[in-house]
């Protein structure tokens, strides 16, 4: 690693930190711009009770004091305060509870998408313009155009209601199968297309021809030479893939009744549980920003030829 790479990493790190700060700040001030405040939906509260509630949650202090307290709590203790609607629980408790299921869901989906996407992409590239390539391309085009919630409900109708093969409830045995498939189809289709085009690009390179001329076996060329280089663009997709899975799981967990963080997020929006909305947004945003950072740096480290901006 040279000094240029180090500078790039530092720059990228600074941008990531700045982004997280912007997310926290925007979330905080946007949430406090809501008219009436978080206790509006409670049944007619007397003036004194309202005052007491606000004092309890520190909302009687000036806005900038609240902001710095909030920021300090996040940075030092990773504390997002108590939930307003689920009495007695803190936001971070609820989030880490939901995360257990969601992380499992997301990781498995990402893994399936990655493996099957690379395999399908390689097959399509090696059988270019043959019937199998055409089938793969048509299917992936369809999957890329289908929003995750549409995919989810169609799978739900097919496998749960019509065929009755799988349970529609995320808590039941095998209930996570459909949400995982739903979440993995789009990234799988995307990775397939990415792998196919970069593989085709690599297969046309001179060093592949040299290897062929030397008499290297077909499989050695594919796995030793072509695959390694054609997987580099896939690394850049790690960040966006995670972002997709996070936002996708918000609706998918809703459809399949999975007790994860996405479901918590939606119900906190419906219940106007402000600390919960803020906490979830910030935690998920940090996750996405970190993943983007990692995939960008990895991309650079794996392939030193790539020009930095």
């Amino acid at each position, binding site marked *: 690693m040279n000094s240029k790479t180090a500078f790039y990493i530092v720059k990228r790190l600074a*941008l*990531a930190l*700045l*982004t997280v700060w*912007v*997310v926290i700040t*925007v*979330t905080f001030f*946007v*949430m406090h*711009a*809501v*008219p009436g405040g978080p206790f509006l939906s409670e049944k007619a509260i007397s003036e004194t009770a309202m005052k007491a509630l606000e004092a309890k949650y520190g909302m009687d202090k000036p806005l900038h004091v609240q902001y710095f307290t909030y920021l300090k709590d996040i940075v030092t203790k990773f504390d997002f305060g108590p939930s307003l609607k689920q009495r007695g629980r803190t936001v971070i408790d609820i989030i880490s509870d939901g995360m257990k299921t969601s992380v499992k869901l997301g990781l498995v989906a990402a893994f399936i998408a990655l493996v099957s996407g690379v395999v399908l992409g390689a097959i399509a590239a090696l059988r270019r313009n043959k019937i199998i390539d055409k089938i793969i391309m048509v299917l992936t*085009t*369809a999957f*890329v*155009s*289908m*929003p995750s*919630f*549409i995919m989810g*409900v*169609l799978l*739900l*109708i097919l496998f749960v*209601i*019509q065929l009755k093969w799988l349970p529609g409830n995320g808590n039941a045995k095998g209930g996570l199968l459909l949400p995982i498939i739903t979440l993995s189809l789009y990234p799988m289709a995307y990775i397939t297309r990415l792998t196919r085009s970069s593989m085709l690009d690599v297969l046309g390179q001179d060093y592949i021809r040299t290897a062929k001329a030397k008499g290297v076996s077909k499989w050695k060329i594919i796995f030793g030479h072509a695959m390694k280089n054609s997987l580099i663009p896939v690394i850049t997709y790690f960040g966006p893939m995670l*972002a997709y899975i*996070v*936002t996708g799981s*918000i*609706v998918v967990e*809703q*459809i399949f009744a999975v007790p994860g963080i996405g479901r918590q*997020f*939606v119900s906190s*929006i*419906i219940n106007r549980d402000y600390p919960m*909305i803020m906490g979830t*947004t910030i935690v*998920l*945003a940090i996750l*996405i*920003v970190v993943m*983007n950072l990692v995939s960008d740096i990895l991309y650079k480290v794996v392939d030193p030829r790539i020009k930095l901006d």
Partner: protein
Amino acid sequence: MKNPFSIQIDKDSYVSGADFLPASDEEKEYMVQMRPSTTFFRDGVKRLVKNRVALVSFIIIVVITVSAIVLPMFWPYTYEDMLGVQPGRPVDASYNNLAPMTYGKTEQARIEAGEKIFPHLFGTDSSGRDYFIRVVYGTRISLAVGFFASIIVLIIGITIGSIAGYIGGKVDLIIMRIVDIIYSLPDMLMVILLASVLRMTLSTALEGTVLEKIGSNIISLFIVFGILYWVSMSRLIRGQILSLREQEYVLAAQATGAKAGWIIRKHLIPNCISVVIISTALQIPNAIFTESYLSFLGLGVNAPMPSLGSLASDALNGINSYAYRLVIPAIVISLIVLSLNLFGDGLRDAFDPKLNA
């Protein structure tokens, strides 16, 4: 006699009467244009028409758009009429949840009396509203939201991008750092956050104004798009302008005293118009997707107005008995997004040969 080394032309030997004869037909044929000269636009259209996939997608988009605009004009039902509810009579529940092509009680009676009743193609929903027209109307809303959101993105993106690219220096640096930050924000999370807050803030602010009819949710969607999605457009425009502003014609315009605004409007933007059109075409399905996603979460259009996403979301409650009510809007959304994407790809291939390499 003229000096043989003179460079003066000997008039007599070169110009004779024969040189001024009218051209013969054979000679005229040399001047005939074999094919009319083509323009950039016509060339692109020709390439686009040749692209079968893009053409079919375009036809699908046109058919869907035209029917979404025209059908509600003469359809006998409207998207908000609850057919079972007649003034002065008890609610007729036989109109709720009608299966496709069936009729409510009073309609049955009228048919038996010999009257012709327009069929409910997709039946009715749980409140007795004709479902076909709700889907058509939802398509109209989704398309309109996608289109206007993209226009907003286009205007903001072009303005900021061209200013950053043309002025350069510190202005460019500051704008591009802001772009960097917005670009790395997790967009969907921010969209959900802003949409959920804005609609509450706006609904009180909009009361009694013209905008109330459009609904606070759609307005907040537009604002969110205006805030978040202009960045990639402005990045694109800035990159184009950075290279275009070094061209001679810009220097010529500057030399004749043209102001920056004039140069940007008359010289630079027309020259990057193909990039602008392509990325706008690809922005529309993106906006439709976001709208349906938000509607599905309950953050989209205000009831009773339907959008494809909210129709799908409403149908989720009755999914066990009325699955088709979910499948129909799902298919329409997928069809729209797919054909817009394919058409956008076709546009890019046709109008931006450089990207093709």
